[in-house]
């Protein structure tokens, strides 16, 4: 608790320092390179009022993509944990997928799909899914043999064993993955939105850039940073609620 408060105070100090630097910089550098803080604040207000729809669209795309990656990836991870042959072939495939740069996925998406929605969805899923699959697989392999033997001694069916032991055990892995995937996935979403979407934060950023609205670019940047923080905090809360059974969690 103390740690969080101290973390907040330092974050606020850093934000204040950044704003001060920006303000000082805007006095020396032309406005079209560094706008002053009031101008950015004004732009942010406009953005939040008139472009709420774009924020919602981006968040929806992000949620859809991450949710699909979570569902499919976890399923694949469970299959890998249950059937060794699946793991043997899925592992190299997932590693290859992860080695493909995000930009290349975006290019493939543009070439393969006409619909902007499908493009964004495809890119987010294809980039997030391997993380879920590999981490859920790790989680399943990491179930302590002691617990497996204890639960098996009560002779559960296969489904019962999965529900009682494997799934609860993999929850921390899923949360951990979501934590690291979210920040990445939101960048990918916006990146993919830059090309060919009419609404969304990426589309607005594209427009701001073409109109030389540096104040709007700064405003969107701030909005994105806040969105990232809020998402991380939400996952953290979920983490604490679901994982209160872990003694090290209680220490925080």
């Amino acid at each position, binding site marked *: 608790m103390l740690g969080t408060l101290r973390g907040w105070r330092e974050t606020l100090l850093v934000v204040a320092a950044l704003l001060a630097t920006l303000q000082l910089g805007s006095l020396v550098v032309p406005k079209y390179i560094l706008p002053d803080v009031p101008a950015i604040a004004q732009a942010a207000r406009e953005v939040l009022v008139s472009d709420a729809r774009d924020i919602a669209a981006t968040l929806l795309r992000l949620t859809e993509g991450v949710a699909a990656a979570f569902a499919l990836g976890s399923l694949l991870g469970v299959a890998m944990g249950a059937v060794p042959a699946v793991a043997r072939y899925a592992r190299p495939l997932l590693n290859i997928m992860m080695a493909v740069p995000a930009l290349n996925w975006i290019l493939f998406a543009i070439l393969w799909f006409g619909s902007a929605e499908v493009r964004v969805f495809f890119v987010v899923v294809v980039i997030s899914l391997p993380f879920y699959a590999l981490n859920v697989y790790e989680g399943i392999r990491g179930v302590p043999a*002691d*617990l497996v*033997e*204890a*639960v*098996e*001694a*009560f*002779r*559960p*069916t296969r489904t*019962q064993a999965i529900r*009682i*032991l494997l799934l*609860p055990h993999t*929850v921390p892995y899923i949360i951990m993955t979501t934590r690291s995937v979210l920040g990445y996935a939101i960048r990918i979403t916006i990146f993919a939105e830059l090309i060919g979407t009419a609404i969304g934060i990426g589309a607005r950023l594209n427009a701001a850039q073409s109109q030389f609205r540096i104040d709007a670019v700064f405003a969107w940047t701030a909005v994105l940073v806040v969105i990232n923080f809020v998402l991380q905090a939400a996952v953290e809360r979920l983490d604490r609620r679901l994982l*209160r*059974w*872990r*003694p090290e969690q*209680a220490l925080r």
Partner: protein
Amino acid sequence: MTPVEHAPTPRRRQDREPRPEPDAVVLHDVWRAWGGAVAVAGLTFALRPGEIAACVGVTGAGKSTALRMVMGAIVPDRGEIRVLGHDPARDFGLLRGKIAPVFQTDRLLPWRTALENAALGLEILGVPAEERRRRAQAWLERLGLTAAASKLPHELSGGMRQRVSLARAFALDPQLLLLDEAFSHLDEVTAAGVRADFLSLARPLGTTCLLVTHSVAEAVEVADRILVFGRPARVVAEVRVAAPVRADPVAQDRVRREVLAHLQGAMAG
């Protein structure tokens, strides 16, 4: 090897012509190796229904290996095992609800409360939620854990966790309890308390119990019959402990020395 006289069994049959009840556990010439090393070497013994038997052996004698074969977790290389008339590994589902384990460490699911842990076996058996809560709660109470029902394992002491693990086993109302060093992990005072509670619950129920332990004192205190294991595991001696002996410290001590002599003889031979 088959015992000749037994105490009357609590689960009597109403047959006109009284047939002897089949043994609860039978091992016949069971062998098992790990890698090349033999851990169980021609193990043969039988347990009467309602009997409490303790297998005593030194560390690494193959006690856990033997117990895990009775549990059906691993299969013998050769020999035969019957548990309540079934092959414990092959007839996996047929023995559901009939066997319950207690291990050296509690092995509770860390994300479940004491109550949810105690209800695990009943859940697997398909007992409706309300009833399994009630039954698990009753067993927690019998083991002195009324206040701990909603606590998570990491919030409980080692002794309490082991009691939850006992509640989990008893709640199933099993025909056979398998205990692997179930009291060895605890300090002496706590272990004595948990052991006493275990006995006061298991004896009146007439549940067949198979314990393995390296502690001679524990075996003498708990069991009707002690099977002394050599290393690798096979029965080198069998010592009966009558109820009056368990009540009498001097007699207990005599039996303890007898068992110890058998153990040392097995190691020397």
